[in-house]
């Protein structure tokens, strides 16, 4: 019986990433999905079944191959679902403070290329979500788009290599293994950002994934990427710099619905450590939430944070106009690390009221370490199922 604690935790982490995946239900499902009472999963059930049916047509990825880059930055057609998710914060010389989330999801409709001759026939659908925050102006806007791979509306070009969705592109640099260029524009905001990894990826071993994901989910985390580039928001192009975080996963993912909702906390401390925490909540509230995660040290080594090594308490709430109440500030205690952090939203309203409604926002982090030293940093928090 092989035992590997960190592999186990990474495994769990990756499946939970999948649990948190925002998948695009149809327009009729959107409203019901938003308004369901806690525990009511029926509106998702049929959609969930469709996804399961599709996923079942795909062979499970049982290979033990090591990931290789830049190959694995790109599309894995053998996997029914795939996600690229960048989140980060940026500053300008003029003192602007921006936050962003760019999530691109590929959803396969069938394992093979379509046989029917229509130009609209499509193997995959891409879903993109861009959320942009201008903290100083209290401005937050989330934009979503879907496009089929038919007619060149979305897709992946292995030669460039480049993922695109309408005019949005994620370019994977060929000369540098862990670098990306994002070009996206929506709602009057244009991001043109270069991302260079400052740390090695955290990669779960394929043989360890089965535990939580049925051996059918793989992925990696780049917990710190240096951002450089320009942001056009309003009249001006402004040079920005900052830090981003990338989550990548592909395979057979947990469909939406189910009994649990997930909160995710990605913290980048200024001492070059990162913390990833997942909080699982039963939708019916029948048991207290459970939290666990990873500590990524300055040298890139990832250590598990188990259930009894982290305690989360909401510290402030924000309600959207329809009365949904989100815990937007959090106290996070790590008894074993003798560390306590407070996460505060840069802006309270960072709700992405799109096909899936979440609070997905940038936070600031302050706290104290074991010798009483002050800790600071930034973070990204996603709250789902409220």
């Amino acid at each position, binding site marked *: *019986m092989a*035992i590997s*604690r960190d592999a186990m935790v990474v495994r769990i982490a990756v*499946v939970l990433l999948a649990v948190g995946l925002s998948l695009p239900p149809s327009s009729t499902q959107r409203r019901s999905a938003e308004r369901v009472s806690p525990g009511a999963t029926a509106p998702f059930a049929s959609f969930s079944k469709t996804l399961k049916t599709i996923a079942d047509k795909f062979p499970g990825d049982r290979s033990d191959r090591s990931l290789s880059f830049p190959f694995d930055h790109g599309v894995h057609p053998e996997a029914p679902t795939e996600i690229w998710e960048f989140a980060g914060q940026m500053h300008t010389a003029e003192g602007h403070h921006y936050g962003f989330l760019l999530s691109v999801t590929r959803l396969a409709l069938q394992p093979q290329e379509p046989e029917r001759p229509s130009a609209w026939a499509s193997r995959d659908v891409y879903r993109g979500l861009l959320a942009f925050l201008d903290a100083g102006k209290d401005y937050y806007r989330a934009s979503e788009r879907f496009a089929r791979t038919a007619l060149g509306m979305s897709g992946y070009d292995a030669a460039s290599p480049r993922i695109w969705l309408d005019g949005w592109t994620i370019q994977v640099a060929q000369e540098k293994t862990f670098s990306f260029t994002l070009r996206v524009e929506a709602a009057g905001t244009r991001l043109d950002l270069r991302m260079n990894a400052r740390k090695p990826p955290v990669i779960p071993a394929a043989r360890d994934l089965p535990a939580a994901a*049925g051996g059918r989910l793989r992925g990696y985390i780049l917990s710190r990427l240096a951002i450089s580039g320009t942001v056009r928001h309003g009249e001006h192009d402004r040079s920005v710099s900052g830090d981003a975080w990338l989550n990548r996963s592909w395979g057979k993912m*947990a469909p939406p619905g189910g009994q649990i909702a997930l909160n995710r906390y990605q913290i980048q401390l200024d001492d070059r450590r990162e913390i990833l925490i997942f909080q*699982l909540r039963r939708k019916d509230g029948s048991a207290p939430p459970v939290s666990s995660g990873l500590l990524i040290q300055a040298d890139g080594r990832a250590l598990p944070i188990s*259930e009894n090594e982290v305690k989360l308490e909401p510290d402030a709430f924000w309600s959207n106009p329809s009365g949904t109440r989100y815990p937007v500030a959090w106290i996070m205690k790590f008894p074993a690390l003798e560390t306590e952090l407070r996460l505060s939203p840069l802006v309270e309203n960072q709700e992405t009221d799109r096909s899936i409604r979440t609070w997905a926002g940038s936070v600031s982090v302050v706290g104290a370490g074991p010798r009483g030293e002050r800790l600071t940093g930034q973070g990204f928090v996603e709250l789902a199922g409220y």
Partner: protein
Amino acid sequence: MPHAILVLVFTAILAFMLAACDSHEQNDAVAYSPIGPVPHVPQRRGDPDKGYEALLNAPYITCGMPYSAYKQTAPPPEPEMLISGRPGRNAELPYNLTAYTTPEGVELVVNNCLHCHAGFFDGKLVIGLGNENLDYTEDRTAAVESIGAYVDDEAEAAEWRRWADRVRAMTPYRITDTVGSNPAINMTLALMAHRDSATLAWSQDPLIDPPPKTVAPVSVPPWWRMAKKNAAYYNTEGRGDLARAMMVGAIFCADDLDTVRNIDTYAPDILAYFASIKPPPWPFGIDAPLAERGRVVFERTCSGCHGTYGEQPSYPNLVLGLDEIGTDPVMAQNAAGGTSNRFIRWFNRSYYGETARAAPAMGYIAPPLDGIWITAPYLHNGSVPTIEALLDSSKRPKYWTRSYGSSAADYDPVALGWRYTELTEGKEGVKDSRERKKIYDTTLPAYSNAGHAFGDSLSPEERKAVLEYLKTL
């Protein structure tokens, strides 16, 4: 892996923990068993073939993960994880899982006894061998909860919650320090605390004080010893109707009397199967003349407690007091020192205690040594890695680790045990929890490797001969 989760979660429950006495009377007087021989008590007759079938296929554990969630999350089992001849759904499940359809029609995948009570040697599954490689050091609550992401149907969701709630109630009491140590006792006591002793009904809040969260390590004993033993468990706390005593393994999910009455109809068959198991023969060569010299030494110095073997075997069923055996006292003291009386009373008041009785002794039984070569590590707490070290206390490592593999290469056929690496420091000096949990630290409370120093008085030649003889048992 999800079946590992199930596994970690439900298992060790087949702790023949509590037990029986010859009295059918229900009363609250706590009685401990004396040091000395354990008297024979007639047992119910059972059919070993039926017992084997029931063990592998009957739903004596009645809660678990919905099958649909299992299918979405678990990889197909490796071929060596399958037992041929299992019917229906069980044919596709690994040996330690069983399919069960609830009265409401929900298909579940539940754990069975083999999770702790089957182990591998050289790639082959040995049913009845304690699995000494299980990792109970981790809190798996998040993994169990995350399975809920794959559950949509309301009837399935109710079953998932039932399972997850029990796992969560038990988890704080089953976290061990060291991989390979089994928390079955504490798991069982924690579950007792959540059940009404008369009705077995589950209470989300404990009804009596749960056990301490510190788990005393236990090595899982092989089932085949039940052929000779008059009581179950190292401290002989399981007495009387041993089939009933071992049924407490169902405590994880058995929520009512009908469930346990049904299990009771085939429990004697399972016990008969245990007694019918033949331990695997020593797979390497034997120096027969040396072994014969060892037999003479063994029968002169060891048989008084461990019995004789061969054509006409004997076994004295002898419990030794802590002063005499000198091995780590914590397990015995926990049970018979007064602090567990509420659990003894719970058992004796319950359906389990109607024909069995919990009566721990302040000591340990000298076990039968059949198949002893494959049951490393040794002593009740698994503190001594090899027979060679057991027979010569100067060779016992203070701090040690092993591969936790079970291939022939992981086995040391000279010392008789799993190969180990002696370390220069214990857990205290090691920060990395992944390393720390693999260190067996005999300086910790309940982990002592002291006692049973009887081999020290033998000459090196005599020890070598005894070791050779033990291979033949």
